[in-house]
C-alpha cells in the first residue's frame, strides 16, 4: 500500500516536472541566461555556436551534387557546423512535439513569397557579415571582434527599415483572406505528439552515443549542445528579431534585456577562454570589418522582418512546422552558399568586405571586456527608457 503511495507521489512529481518544462512558458530572461551559459559550454567543449555554417554546408552539398561546385564540402555527418544546426532542428522539433505545439502551418501565398525573398536576403547578409545573427553578431561580439558590433548597428538599421516596409505593405498591398489552416493536424495526432517527441530525444541520445563510440565524441557532444539550444529556444520562443524590432514596433524592451543578460555571460566566458590561452584568439574574428558586417547586417536585418525569423529563429520555427519558415530556410541556405562562393571568387570583393579587427589587439582584454559590457548596459537602459517614453517607437 505504502509502495503504491510512493509510486503515485513519484508519478505526481514527474508529471509536474514534465508540465513545468513542456507546458508552462519559460520566461524570456531565463532563456537568455541559459543561452549565454550554453554558448560558453559549447565553446569550451569544441567550438562556438553557429547556425548558418551548417545550412551552408548542406547547400554546398546540394550544389556539388547537381554539378555546380566541383569541390565536395566537408561531410555533413562530421562537419561541426552541420551538426550544431542539425541539433538545433532536432531539439526544437522534439520540444515542439513534447509541448504539443508542432503542426504543419500553411501560410498565404504572399507570405510564402516573403519567405523566399527574406530567406535569400538572410543568406546574402550572413555571407557578407561572416555569420548570421548568431555567428556574425552574438558570437562575434563574444569573441571580441569589432565586426560583431558593426553587424549589430546594421541589424538595428535593417530591422527599422524592414518594419517601415511592413507598415507600407499593410497600407498598399491588400491581404487576401488566408486559406483555412490545418492547425495541428487533428486532435488525435496532437495527443500522441509527446510520445513521438520522447522518441525524437531518445534518438538524439543514441546518435550521440554512436558518435562517441566511433571516436567522434566532440561531434556527438556538439549534437547534444545543438539540441539543448533547440529546446531552450523553442520553449522560451527566444527571438533575436524581437530584440532588434520590438523597440521600434511595440516599444517593448524585454527581449533587449534578455539578449543583454545572455551576451554578457557569453562575453565573460569567451574572454576567460581566450585570455587564458585555452582557446585561439582568432576564433570567430572574421575578415568582415567593417563593410561586410555593417552592410550585411542591414540586409540581414531587413530579411529578418520579411521572414519573421533570423538564423536561429527561422530554423526553430521551421522545426515547429511553419511552412513559410521552411521555405525561408531553404532559400537562406542556397543564397548563402552561392553568395559566399561569389565573395571568395573575387579578391577585390574580399578586400571590400573587410579585415579582421580583434579589439584586444588595440586596447587589451581588460578594456575590451569593460567597454563591451558598458555598451550592452547602455543598450538595455535605452530600450527600457524607450518602454516608458516611446521615443523610438515607429507609429503607423
Amino acid at each position, binding site marked *: 500500500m505504502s509502495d503504491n503511495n510512493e509510486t503515485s507521489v513519484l508519478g505526481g512529481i514527474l508529471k509536474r516536472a514534465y508540465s513545468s518544462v513542456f507546458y508552462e512558458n519559460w520566461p524570456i530572461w531565463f532563456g537568455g541566461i541559459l543561452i549565454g551559459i550554453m554558448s560558453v559550454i559549447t565553446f569550451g567543449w569544441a567550438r562556438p555556436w553557429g547556425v548558418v555554417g551548417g545550412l551552408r554546408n548542406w547547400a554546398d552539398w546540394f550544389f556539388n551534387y547537381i554539378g555546380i561546385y566541383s569541390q565536395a564540402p566537408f561531410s555533413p555527418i562530421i562537419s561541426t557546423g552541420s551538426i550544431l544546426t542539425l541539433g538545433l532542428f532536432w531539439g526544437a522539433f522534439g520540444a515542439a512535439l513534447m509541448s504539443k505545439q508542432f503542426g504543419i502551418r500553411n501560410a498565404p501565398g504572399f507570405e510564402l513569397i516573403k519567405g523566399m525573398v527574406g530567406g535569400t536576403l538572410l543568406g546574402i547578409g550572413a555571407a557578407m557579415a561572416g555569420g548570421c545573427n548568431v555567428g556574425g553578431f552574438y558570437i562575434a561580439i563574444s569573441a571580441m571582434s569589432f565586426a560583431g558590433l558593426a553587424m549589430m548597428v546594421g541589424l538595428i538599421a535593417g530591422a527599422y527599415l524592414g518594419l517601415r516596409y511592413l507598415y507600407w505593405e499593410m497600407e498598399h498591398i491588400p491581404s487576401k483572406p*488566408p486559406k483555412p489552416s490545418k*492547425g495541428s493536424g487533428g486532435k488525435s495526432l496532437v495527443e500522441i505528439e509527446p510520445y513521438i517527441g520522447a522518441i525524437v530525444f531518445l534518438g538524439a541520445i543514441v546518435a550521440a552515443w554512436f558518435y562517441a563510440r566511433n571516436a567522434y565524441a566532440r561531434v556527438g557532444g556538439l549534437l547534444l549542445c545543438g539540441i539543448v539550444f533547440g529546446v531552450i529556444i523553442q520553449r522560451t520562443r527566444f527571438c533575436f528579431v524581437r530584440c532588434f524590432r520590438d523597440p521600434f514596433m511595440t516599444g517593448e524592451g524585454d527581449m533587449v534585456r534578455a539578449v543583454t543578460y545572455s551576451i554578457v555571460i557569453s562575453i565573460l566566458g569567451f574572454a576567460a577562454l581566450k585570455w587564458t590561452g585555452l582557446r585561439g584568439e582568432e576564433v570567430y574574428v572574421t575578415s568582415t570589418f567593417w563593410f561586410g558586417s555593417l552592410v550585411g547586417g542591414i540586409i540581414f536585418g531587413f530579411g529578418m522582418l520579411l521572414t*519573421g525569423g533570423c538564423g536561429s529563429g527561422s530554423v526553430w*520555427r521551421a522545426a515547429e512546422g511553419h511552412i513559410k519558415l521552411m521555405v525561408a530556410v531553404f532559400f537562406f541556405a542556397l543564397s548563402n552558399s552561392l553568395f559566399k562562393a561569389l565573395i571568395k571568387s573575387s579578391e577585390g570583393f574580399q578586400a571590400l568586405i573587410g579585415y579582421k579587427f580583434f579589439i584586444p589587439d588595440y586596447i587589451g582584454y581588460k578594456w575590451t571586456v569593460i567597454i563591451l559590457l558598458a555598451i550592452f548596459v547602455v543598450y538595455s537602459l535605452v530600450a527600457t527608457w524607450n518602454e516608458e517614453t516611446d521615443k523610438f517607437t515607429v507609429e503607423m
Partner: protein
Amino acid sequence: MADEIKPDVTIDLSGLSCPMPAIKMKKELKGMSSGQVLLAIGTDPGTKNDLPGMCKKGGHELLGVDEEGGTFKYYIRKG
C-alpha cells in the same frame, strides 16, 4: 469561457506568423474607440506569448484566450 464576450471588430489572422499578427492587431486597435473589443483569430502559437506584453505596453486589456484544434481566439479590449 471567453466566447461569451461580444466583439465589436473581428480580424482573421489565420496562417500568418510573427510579426504579422501583432502588426495587424496593432493597426486594427488603432482604428477602434476606447472600450471596444477586438476578436483576433490566429494560428501562430507565438502570438499567445507576445500578446500579454503587447497589451500591457499598449494599455489594452486581454480579456481572454480560447484555443481549439490549433486555432486561437484572442479577445482584447482597447484601452
